[in-house]
């Protein structure tokens, strides 16, 4: 060390998808600063969509070119098979979520104004729109890309914040039910900050134990460093809290229903799909790359967390009356099912890649279905905006059979009925778990699925076998973007349910290389 700082070597090609997304986000900020208000939306939408599509193309190009075998950016970022698969998934899900965001109606005109105040009226009157939604979403997506690919804990922390901060803001921008939305944003922010602190503290303790924040080096230190186990265990647990919070695993799930309910529905869709995928990617990376040698140690704890998550998610969903809260609890339960897959990772490499590919497939399947479901939620409206109360959905099947049919189909996919993508997702994860010796966990999972099926089917019964309310909600004619989202989600759910092989194969290929160290 002679005082000079060496410029890091960066593998730009490998990092290109992230660079494109972040670059577009910065361009978006410039647009926000310099372009006249009436032009902004027209500029933002193509930039956002093109950058996401471009990043997706670059991801594909990486796969075609050959998956890198060494971490990039001086060991800070690992662009490996699972990363690329997760990137592809996130980028597609973000693309469809942006199509939903594009539907003008969801965002408030002036977020800082008191709900219902004169300022708000005025802003609305002036036609002020929140076009910064687009760069904010892009920053969040960039964070989602970096999060599962980061190969050291500090980069991961930065990614976590880059992903989360824009989402905190976006949550507060709902046009209707303003108070709820603002409350959600603040809650999400406070609790997110709280859990980030745990993550950071865990990082510090692990650094104390291993002398490095590099995941590979932590792994190498396991068992070599003696007498410091206290640091290690507390550090791992705290890191785990930070990651499990993002997944919404019990007992860290409390934020999810409140935030999903309050956030503008397109943002909920983005969080429920993209954030979940990214968080699972990061969780898997930490537990495999850094703590793989400890699996006898963390898996009993994860067993407990997985069981609690499935049970809490499934049981609490039963008494929900708000459609978005119900979907939030459903998302918690699905997080639990995915954790079953995480637990399924055993010592044998074959078993690992099997479990990993099952999780990856599940994430794709769930991501599409959930975006589709939230897209349908945006379309069922009454005078006060979205018809959030479940009782308002009664008899929807008689008023608009097509939309109700599609929603019923999504619900069946959530429940895991054969010939939908949800079935194969669950089947793959549970099968991997049985092979990995976690049969009791699978039994709990199946029982939880049965409980969950109850509240999914209850909505179907409500839609098709109840008399419609006299002043029931009307189904708005979807904008082209929303219609496209619903269409894509239906197609993906059907396709993955009937022809699961191609994607399963892709996931297996991605999982073959496992995570690189």
């Amino acid at each position: 060390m002679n005082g000079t700082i060496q410029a890091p070597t960066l593998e730009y090609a490998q990092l290109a998808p992230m660079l494109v997304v972040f670059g577009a986000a910065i361009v978006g900020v410039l647009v926000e600063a310099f372009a006249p208000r009436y032009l902004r939306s027209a500029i933002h939408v193509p930039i956002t969509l093109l950058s996401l599509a471009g990043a997706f193309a670059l991801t594909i190009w990486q796969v075609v070119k050959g998956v890198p075998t060494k971490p990039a950016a001086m060991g800070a970022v690992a662009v490996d098979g699972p990363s690329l698969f997760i990137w592809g998934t996130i980028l597609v899900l973000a693309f469809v979520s942006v199509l939903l965001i594009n539907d003008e109606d969801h965002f408030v005109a002036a977020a800082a104004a008191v709900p219902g105040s004169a300022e708000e009226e005025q802003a609305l009157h002036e036609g002020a729109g929140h076009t910064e939604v687009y760069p904010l979403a892009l920053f969040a997506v960039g964070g989602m890309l970096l999060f599962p690919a980061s190969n050291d804990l500090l980069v991961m922390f930065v990614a976590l914040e880059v992903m989360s901060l824009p989402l905190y803001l976006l949550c507060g921008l709902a046009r209707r039910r303003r108070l709820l939305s603002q409350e959600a944003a603040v809650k999400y922010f406070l609790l997110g900050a709280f859990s980030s602190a745990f993550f950071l503290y865990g990082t510090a303790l692990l650094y104390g134990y291993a002398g490095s924040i590099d995941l590979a080096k932590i792994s190498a230190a396991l068992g070599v460093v003696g007498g410091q186990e206290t640091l290690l265990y507390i550090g791992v647990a705290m890191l785990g809290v930070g990651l499990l919070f993002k997944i919404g695993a019990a007992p860290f799930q409390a934020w999810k229903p409140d935030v999903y309910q309050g956030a503008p529905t397109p943002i909920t869709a983005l969080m429920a799909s993209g954030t979940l995928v990214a968080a699972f990617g990061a969780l898997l990376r930490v537990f495999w790359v850094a703590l793989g040698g400890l699996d006898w140690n963390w898996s009993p704890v994860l067993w407990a967390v997985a069981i609690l998550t499935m049970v809490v998610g499934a049981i609490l969903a039963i008494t929900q009356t708000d459609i978005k809260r119900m979907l939030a609890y459903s998302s918690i339960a699905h997080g639990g099912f995915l954790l079953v897959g995480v637990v399924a990772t055993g010592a044998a490499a074959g078993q690992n890649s099997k479990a990993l590919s099952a999780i990856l497939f599940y994430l794709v399947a769930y991501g599409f279905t959930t975006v589709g479901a939230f897209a349908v939620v945006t379309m069922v409206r009454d005078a006060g905006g979205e018809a959030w109360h479940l009782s308002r959905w009664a008899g929807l099947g008689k008023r608009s059979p097509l939309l109700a049919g599609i929603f019923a189909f999504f619900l069946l996919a959530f429940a895991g009925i054969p010939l939908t993508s949800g079935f194969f997702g669950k089947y793959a994860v549970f099968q991997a778990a049985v092979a990995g010796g976690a049969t009791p966990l699978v039994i709990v999972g199946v029982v939880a699925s049965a409980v969950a099926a109850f509240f999914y089917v209850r909505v179907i019964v409500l839609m098709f076998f109840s008399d419609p309310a006299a002043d029931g909600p009307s189904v708005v004619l979807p904008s082209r973007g929303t219609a496209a989202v619903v269409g894509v989600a239906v197609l993906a759910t059907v396709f993955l349910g009937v022809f699961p092989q191609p994607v399963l194969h892709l996931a297996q290929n991605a999982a073959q290389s496992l995570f690189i160290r």
Partner: protein
Amino acid sequence: MEPAEIIQHSGGVIGASWLMIALPLLGAAVLLLGGRKTDKFGHLLGVAMAVASFVVAALAFIQLLGFAPGERRRGVELYDLIPGIAKVGLLVDPLSISFCLLITFVGSLIHIYSIGYMAHDPARRRFFAYLNLFVAAMLVLVLADNYLGLYVGWEGVGLASYLLIGFWQHKPTAATAAKKAFIVNRVGDFGLSIGIFTIFATFHSLSYQGVAEGMAKGGSIPATAIGLLLLLGACGKSAQLPLQSWLLDAMEGPTPVSALIHAATMVTAGVYLVVRSGPIFQATDTAQLVVTIVGVATLLAGAIIGTAKDDIKKALAGSTMSQIGYMMLAAGIGPAGYAFAIAHLITHGFFKADMFLGAGSVMHGMNDEVNMRKYGGLRKVMPITFVTFFIGYLAIIGFPLLSGYFTKDGIIETAMEHNAILGWLAVLGAGITGFYMSRLVFMTFFGKKRWEADAHPHESPAVMTWPLIILSIGAIVLGAFLILGNRFMLFLSPAVGRPEELPSFHPFSTTGLATLALVAVGVVFAWYRYGSAEVPGVAPRGSFLTAFARRDLYGDALNEALLMRPGQWLTRLAVYFDNRGVDGLVNSLAALIGGSSGRLRRIQTGYVRSYALSIFVGAAVLVGAWFVVGNL
């Protein structure tokens, strides 16, 4: 001789044989989803899809003929549904391609005929959509290379049949008939599904290939149980005793449906199932014996029912039951009978479709009158219908050199060789066939006019008569073509095997002559009763035998007494237990879950401070747990 190995195939028309299924399926989808916009051209699209499917089948057939006989079982893998458990694949072999050709060819003709028959129906588009759906499902049934695919097709044709029987659902009788068909079939399908489960549990495979290999390997295989379960499924779909009762009521559907689904194709699916499951049935004498007994019992029962019906379609339906009984009998005999079973199935497909469409043509001209006592003397006003119908009639009674003569005689000869009692009963059945079919023809086309005052019978339009003409040509020549020189048996043998010694055709065997003599007696007796004598406009009371036949041999009464009443009693009992026992358990479980949901819900206070607290406590527990586990 054993069946040949299945060779994996890709490319060519056979590789694209899924198009056969996809095209009519697409047609159905467009017509059902397209709504009224497709009303104008719906019928043409339906016909086009059926014909296109036939073209694919014909090309695949030609390609198949290009292979050496031992290489004519081509498996087409489409994709892996559940790795290690279920693949989706097709099997194009002599057996399945025979069915494909029959289904798509007769299907196309019936589509064309329906243009005329349904011309004035406001829901014609929907009718064609269902017909297309049926064709697609039937092709799935016969083309699948495994029992799961077969089951999908099986249920698909059941659905199409239900929709089409109840097509005129404004008629309560049609709606009831559709429900009856569905429920009776449910009994059969229940057997089939349990049979398929047993197959999977035994062989760990659902493919025909896997089953054949498993059977060859031996070991303890519950072949008899599987065979009887499959037979139950076959009885349901093919209207064999004891699940025959739905077919007569199914005639409530439009006549083209009766011709296509309830005569030519779907109802023969049971025969296909038995033949396709040959490796299982051949390992169990018991199941084979039961198949032959069911076949003989049904062929007699159907024939007896046919003698007493005044409704032209119901008489034909009884005849269908009876003819399928013949096929079932042959299928139960084993490789010696398979070729005759399928050959009779094909010729029957032609002559029975011919006669059903002929009956439709008559009804079309007679204001939809179905009572034969109100017909009479129609041969002069509908010459084409009469001639084609008469050819079908000659074919079914086994008039020498027409189709039925060759195929039915083949079955009777084989049965005679297999078991003399079964053989003579089959001969008796042929005699009764001669009687009831002649009765039908004499009452309809001969004798005096007994028309209603407002009936103005006329020949049907060309779009309806041409299919009749083509079908009647098939009814004349197909039998000789298939049977002479054992052409069909040799063609079919790679798929189902054949006896070492090929049967030879004796035109003047004892059995053959006895059959002809009995048929002649039947015809003459019918002429004496219905041709030369006056036919009363109202059915006479008749003997107790007539009443017996008229009431479908008390099949419905039997069902009611044996199944429906005890069934209702059982449901009442089950409901009682359900309310008291099961519901108590389930409700308390549900209450427990619901209650805990309600209680747990209170944790979600909405206060961010309590959320943070829960995170904190959770983290503390997690740290503690890690610590404990780590230090174990």
